[in-house]
């Protein structure tokens, strides 16, 4: 109980950013859940006489080249874009943590091979690699997720492996071994809980940039295919009509930015909260 109260005290004083981040993310979550109820128009319904209407009272964000309501599409798109990003982060974090832990824990030949692989993957600019994988897999939502995961797991694996190696030499691990814990027990009871907090911080910091990655790749035409109302795809559509209908580009981009900003602020705030120096200052109060 006291811990929870302390947590909120800390929030009040220093963490406007964290609170804002949580609020924005919370709103996004509500939008994702209640999307169908919030849309005023059918996001996929075309009506050619309504095309290129600038933002007005009937269409707050205007309409696109096929007369579809952009606000409704942006709302519907939150489901596509945000779930993609969250899926990528969860899959790659789980994969990376698992591989990193095992690799660091057992060491040896497998560890060496794995870390060389990590080095090679890190030698690529992320997007270039994801694009190359997309060529292999073809376009589509699922393939996009796989492509980014292929690059992203490496980051988590590195952290998890580093932690595992540090832990391996800790005395209480020696002690646990001495009383006969099996490797599986060690991993589950000691290594995993120790690594998970770091991984979670990374996840919270990463979601923002993953949203951007996903959007970039869909913008390039590798993710969800039209007429699916993905934000990246919408901007890519808008690109062709920049002269007459800048709102087609503007609003989906803002949606990406706001959701990425929400996650970034939350991640930043959490990091601040867990930064030992800051925590010390707060605790001594």
């Amino acid at each position, binding site marked *: 109980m006291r811990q929870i109260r302390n947590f909120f005290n800390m929030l009040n*004083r220093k963490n406007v950013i964290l609170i804002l981040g949580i609020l924005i993310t919370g709103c996004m979550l509500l939008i994702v859940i209640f999307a169908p109820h919030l849309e005023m128009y059918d996001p996929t319904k075309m009506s050619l006489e309504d095309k290129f209407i600038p933002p007005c009272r009937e269409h707050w964000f205007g309409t696109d080249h096929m007369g579809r309501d952009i606000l409704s599409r942006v709302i519907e798109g939150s489901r596509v874009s945000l779930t993609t990003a969250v899926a990528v982060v969860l899959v790659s974090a789980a994969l990376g943590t698992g591989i990193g832990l095992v690799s660091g824990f057992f060491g040896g030949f497998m560890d060496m091979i794995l870390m060389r692989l990590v080095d090679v993957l890190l030698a690529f600019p992320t997007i270039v690699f994801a694009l190359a994988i997309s060529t292999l897999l073809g376009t589509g939502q699922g393939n996009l997720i796989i492509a980014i995961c292929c690059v992203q797991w490496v980051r988590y694996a590195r952290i998890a492996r580093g932690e595992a190696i540090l832990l391996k030499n800790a005395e209480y691990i020696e002690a646990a071994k001495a009383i006969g814990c099996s490797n599986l027990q060690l991993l589950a009871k000691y290594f995993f809980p120790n690594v998970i907090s770091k991984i979670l911080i990374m996840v919270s910091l990463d979601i923002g940039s993953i949203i951007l990655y996903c959007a970039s790749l869909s913008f390039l035409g590798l993710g969800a295919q039209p007429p699916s109302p993905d934000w990246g795809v919408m901007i890519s559509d808008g690109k062709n009509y920049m002269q007459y209908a800048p709102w087609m580009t503007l609003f989906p981009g803002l949606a990406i930015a706001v959701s990425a900003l929400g996650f970034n602020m939350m991640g930043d705030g959490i990091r601040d909260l867990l930064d030992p120096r800051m925590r010390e*200052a707060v605790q*001594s*109060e």
Partner: protein
Amino acid sequence: MKDLLQVKDLNVGFLVGKREVQVLRNVSFSIGEGEILGVIGETGCGKSVTGSAVLRLLPENALVKGEILYKGKEILYMEEENYRELRGKEISAIPQSPGTSLNPMMKVGNQVAECITGKEIRKRESVRTAVNDIFRRLQLPGKDRCYGNYPWELSGGMCQRVLIGMGMITHARLLIVDEPTKAIDWALRKEVADILLRLKQEMGCAMMMITHDIGVASYVADRVAVMYCGEIVEVGKTEDILHHPIHPYTRGLIRAMPANGFEVMEGFMPSFSDLPEGCNFCTRCRYRDTVCSRPQEMEEADAGHWVRCRRWGEIIKSREEQLCS
């Protein structure tokens, strides 16, 4: 003896959140020309804060009250730029951790030389000679051998000596030495203490030596001040403090020295935010009485021997009785 440094009623608090935590209360002492004052006490008793206050290195959230006079001149509130002129030249310091106090990207010789070149314009050659001269006097490998080394190429003891070199090369009148033996091997302790003593004899500079090592303090210092919970509880000549301590805390400290039987005091130092009424030591004191719950003043028990304990008379008496029986 003329007073070089006078500290009068120094109060320091730190602003944490919206509350102020008082860490120094009415600290007063003086250091004469060429005198070494040892300031001893446990970790966290406020002795380093006192040193930092004199050097004006307290963090921004510190609230400082009181007076610090150097050669009769107020230095606590003077302009930063004017105080900077004093730093190094008049008041110098030897910091406590040799491992981290040297810039890893700069040759140690240049770091020492900087103390001079930062202050006055001198020929590069003469500065270099001066630095090498200091290194030789500190028994560091001379002849330019050490000058070009980086700090991480030297051992801890050597780094400590480089730091001492920095403190003394400008012939400052007052040297604040913070825990000179903290990060050093037991075996090197006496060596450093000897260097400090020689420094005083050769250059005649005064020192404020902050340490928790009573052995070193008694070896080097002319006078000793004992601090407890942000207050000076006893101050006097080294032999008086060491052989005829009055304040129960001082007596406890001395009894706790390995040479005197390793008898450790009961209890712990209370936290600054949670001090007892009156005498800070009363909760751990075996001479506790009703007067102890009232504020204690410094009283002169003997010539130049001051103590912050109202019951000093009775304590001396009981000590004499103990000796008689």
